Each structure stands twice: as structure tokens, then as C-alpha cells.
């Protein structure tokens, strides 16, 4: 089957500064993927190339078999980072969601009865049906993220692209958002997101793409989240822990030791990883450990 996103040897730079080099990437219909990498790795730039708002210096970008030549990608919806939104802009939730229908080319400024019904359906689907007339500033972080998700969904996209949907919200909300995205993916929407939250990505996203100017690795979290791959991606000292079938990733603090990373239940005694029920992957035993 033809991939929905296809990047062939794509390179891009801002001025003389290369940001992405020789990116080969395929996303197939129905995939749920996360782009991870350090700040400045080119994640947002890669999203913008896929969205068609940037053109590659070299290589090709195709969406659903159609090459993008500086135009917007068809049947793609985008949820931007919350911090880029002007929260003082005078718009209600309903007005924001209706923006997603702009492709319908309705010449009337006001929504049709059908559009209003559709807006309410999408809002209900995301459990924010009662907020249609609220100003966007008056919502919680999780509700705000759902509003922009609703705007994307009303466009009935094949591909949903999200830039750091879990940034700026607490862990519980981030968990809910990723769970919601999982549900949408099960309904057939291909999803690509960027995130800095590796633990949430490991728990919820089945396909991880490690990026740092080039694609370092891609695959399931179990395959990709190894100290070797993450050290290469983040150019740092990463710890990967497994506990009850879950993966946890932690950046080793500079100038600190293993003792600072895992707290001691009894002062003066260092527990073994087995006592904690944690399998340490690629982690040398600290000095003094039993």
C-alpha cells in the first residue's frame, strides 16, 4: 500500500545552517508515530515540510502520493503548540473549531445548520460539548488542547499532525490526550506528533522516530529506546529502565551519580535493582551497591 507520508532524501537548512540532512521517511495509513529528539533536532521543521509550509532544499515530500510543491498538504490537519496561540484573541470555542471547515469554501460568514451540528458532535466526542460558547482563554490546558484537536477533526483528515501536544499540560492531562489520540488512531486516522515526553511516548505511541538532523532510528519503543540509540539521539547520558513491562527514560544528571537518580528507601543503604523490581538496562552497578 502507498505510504501516506513519503520523504525521499530530504535536506533543509535555514540560511547556511543545515537542519535536516538526507531524511528518508515513510508513514503508512493507520500508523501512530512520534518524532522525538533534542531541541533543535529539526522536529518542527520536519513537520512543516510534511505540512507543506516549508519546501525542502533537496529531496521530495509526498502526501498520499501527491508531491508537495509549496502548497498545503491535502487532507492533513494540524494542531500547533499551545504556546503559539494568542489566548487573548476574541474567539469562542465554536469559532475556533469552525476554522477547520475553511476548506469547504462556504461564502457565508456564519455557519450552516449542518456545520453547527457537526461542531457540536465533534465537541461532544471530545467531552467538551458544554464549552462551545466559552472564550478559549477561560479553559484549562487540557480543554484548550481538545479545542484545537476538535478543529483538526472537523476537517476530517487522513493524517493528523501535532506539534508537542503534551507540552504545557500536567502529566494526567498529557496521559488523557495521548489516550484520546490512540482512540482516534484506532478509528483510522494516521497520527504523527512531536514530543519531549519520552516516557509518555513509550507508553502510548507504537512507532517512535528518533531524530537529530537525520533519522537515528525508528521502530517500536522497545526497539528504539535503548541507551545506545538515545545517547546518539540526545548526545547525552540516558538511562533506560524497565518496570512491569513499562519503559522509563531518564537523562543522567550532569555531575551527579546513580544514587541521586534512584532514591534510597533506608538512609545509608543502597537497594539493588532487583529489590526495587526494576531491571536496569545498560546501567553499570554503582559503587557501594550490594
Amino acid at each position: 500500500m502507498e505510504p501516506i507520508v513519503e520523504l525521499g532524501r530530504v535536506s533543509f537548512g535555514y540560511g547556511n545552517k543545515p537542519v535536516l540532512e538526507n531524511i528518508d521517511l515513510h508513514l503508512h495509513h493507520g500508523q501512530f508515530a512520534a518524532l522525538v529528539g533534542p531541541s533543535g533536532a529539526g522536529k518542527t521543521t520536519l513537520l512543516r515540510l510534511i505540512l507543506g509550509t516549508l519546501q525542502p532544499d533537496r529531496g521530495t515530500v509526498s502526501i498520499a502520493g501527491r508531491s508537495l510543491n509549496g502548497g498545503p498538504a491535502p487532507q492533513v490537519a494540524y494542531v500547533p503548540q499551545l504556546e503559539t496561540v494568542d489566548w487573548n484573541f476574541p474567539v469562542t470555542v465554536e469559532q475556533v473549531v469552525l476554522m477547520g471547515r475553511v476548506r469547504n469554501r462556504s461564502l457565508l460568514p456564519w455557519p450552516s445548520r449542518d456545520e453547527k451540528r457537526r461542531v457540536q458532535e465533534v465537541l461532544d466526542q471530545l467531552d467538551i460539548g458544554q464549552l462551545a460558547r466559552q472564550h478559549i482563554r477561560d479553559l484549562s490546558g487540557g480543554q484548550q488542547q481538545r479545542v484545537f484537536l476538535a478543529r483538526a477533526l472537523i476537517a476530517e483528515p487522513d493524517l493528523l499532525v501535532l506539534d508537542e501536544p503534551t507540552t504545557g499540560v500536567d502529566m494526567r492531562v498529557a496521559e488523557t490526550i495521548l489516550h484520546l489520540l490512540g482512540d482516534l488512531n484506532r478509528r483510522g486516522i494516521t497520527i504523527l506528533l512531536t514530543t519531549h515526553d519520552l516516557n509518555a511516548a513509550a507508553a502510548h505511541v507504537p512507532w517512535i522516530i528518533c531524530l537529530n538532523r537525520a533519522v537515528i532510528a525508528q521502530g517500536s519503543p522497545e526497539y528504539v529506546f535503548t541507551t545506545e540509540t538515545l545517547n546518539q539521539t540526545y548526545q547525552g547520558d540516558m538511562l533506560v529502565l524497565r518496570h512491569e513491562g513499562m519503559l522509563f527514560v531518564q537523562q543522567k544528571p550532569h555531575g551527579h551519580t546513580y544514587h541521586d537518580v534512584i532514591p534510597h528507601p533506608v538512609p545509608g543503604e543502597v537497594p539493588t535493582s532487583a529489590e526495587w523490581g526494576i531491571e536496569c538496562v545498560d546501567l553499570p552497578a554503582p559503587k557501594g551497591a550490594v
Partner: protein
Amino acid sequence: MFEPFQFEFFRNGTLAAVLTGALCGLIGVYIVLRGMSYIGHGLSHAIFGGAVVSFVLAWNFYLGAGLWGFGAAVLINQTTRRTRINADAAIGVITTASFAIGVALISRYRKFTRSFDAALFGNILGVETADLVVIAAVTILVGLMIFFLYRSLLFTTFSSDVAQVYGVKTGWIDTLFALMLAAVLIASMKILGVTLIAAALVIPPITARLLTDSFNRMILLSTAIGAGAGFAGMYASYYLDLASGATIVLTQAACFAIVLLITSLRKRMGRLIHTHV
């Protein structure tokens, strides 16, 4: 009460003031929300340069000044998009240089100086039928463009980058907006003058913004405030024997001050009640 309406100059002036007030109030919403408040001030100065050039070259005022203003607006837009120069700096350079061309030409051809008083300070009482036709035509044109481009304009104003992803041709929208803005400024220039247009573009929308959190209502309120202040300002200027353009702007400013006071008091009262409950 109806005494001033027996004079044709007053009837023409009032109609012109109401239409330009509504027009500036309408397009001003987009200017304020795009964070371009300074462009009204700058572009009206740029158009003044164009007006002088078209006078010297014996071109039609509306055509010459219109093309000049549109060119300046597009140049500002392109400079901001394609370079690292911010919009405020681009407006400062391009419009001031354009205004300076006008001033330089006036100083070179001193015999024209008096003709540009109306362009600088407005001459609402000297409004002729031809001016009214231009204002009415621009009002209808801009009104229709905003009506039919309403959704794309709103999305582009809210978030230009994202609108592009959803299929809005933001480049075209920006160009059309520059064209509309230039047309509004030229139609308003003879009425309010270069020095007062900026206020008419900014005060009604920010007053409306204080009153509502809805974009649709902000559009309606800002247009109504602009038109209402145009009418009230004209009426007051007749009895107070003040310059009409200045009285219109002062009426808008008074309206803003009253709304600001009321909304601030209401907010404080709300906080007090909330604290004591």
C-alpha cells in the same frame, strides 16, 4: 435639533463621517488583532507622499495615491516576510520615506502647499458628491470583500501559519487586505486627514474588544462605534464650533474612556463580591 441638517455641506459631511467611521471601525478590527495598529498611521503618511506625487505628475488623486498606498502596503508585507526586519521597523522605514518624498516635493513646489492641508488635517465640510461616491463605493467593496472572505480572513488573522496548512491562500489574503486598507485610507484621507486616520482605525476596535470576547460581535460593535462616533462627532462639532475630524476622534476617545472605566469598575466589583462571598 435638526437645524444643521438643512445645510447640504453638513448632510454630506455627516454621511461621509458615518461611512468612513464605519469603514475604519470594520477594517480596524483586523488591524488591531494582527498587531498592526501602527500601520494605519504609517500608511496614511505613505499615501500622503503618493498624493503629492500624483498631483505633481497630474495624475488622478485616487488612482495615484491608491497605487502608491497599495505598493507601500505590499512592500511592508514582503519586507517583513522575506527579511529579519520586524513589521514595526518596516512600516517606519517605508512609510516615513514615502512621507518625506511628499514633504520634499511640497517644499520644491511651494505653490502647491495649501492644496494639501485637507489631506493632512481633513476637510469634512468640503466633501463633494464625487468624494461621497468614492467613499460609498469603497464601503460597499470592502464590506463585500470582508463578507465573502470572512472565514479566511478570520483564520489568517488568528493564526496565519496554521491557516495555510488548512488550505487558506494566506499570501493572497494578505495582498487583498493591503488593497482594502489602502482603499480605506484613501477614501478617509480627505475626511479625517493623515494625522487622524490612525485613531479612527484603532479606537473603535479596542473599545469593542473591551466589550466582547466574540469576534463576530467585535466586528459589529466596532463598525457601530465608528459610525456612531462619526455622527455624534459631526453633530457636536457644529454646536461647539470645533474642527470636525478632531471632534470625531475625540468622541471616539471619550467613548473608549467611558467603556474602559465601566469595564474596569465592573471587574473590580466582581472581584470584591468574589472575595467577600
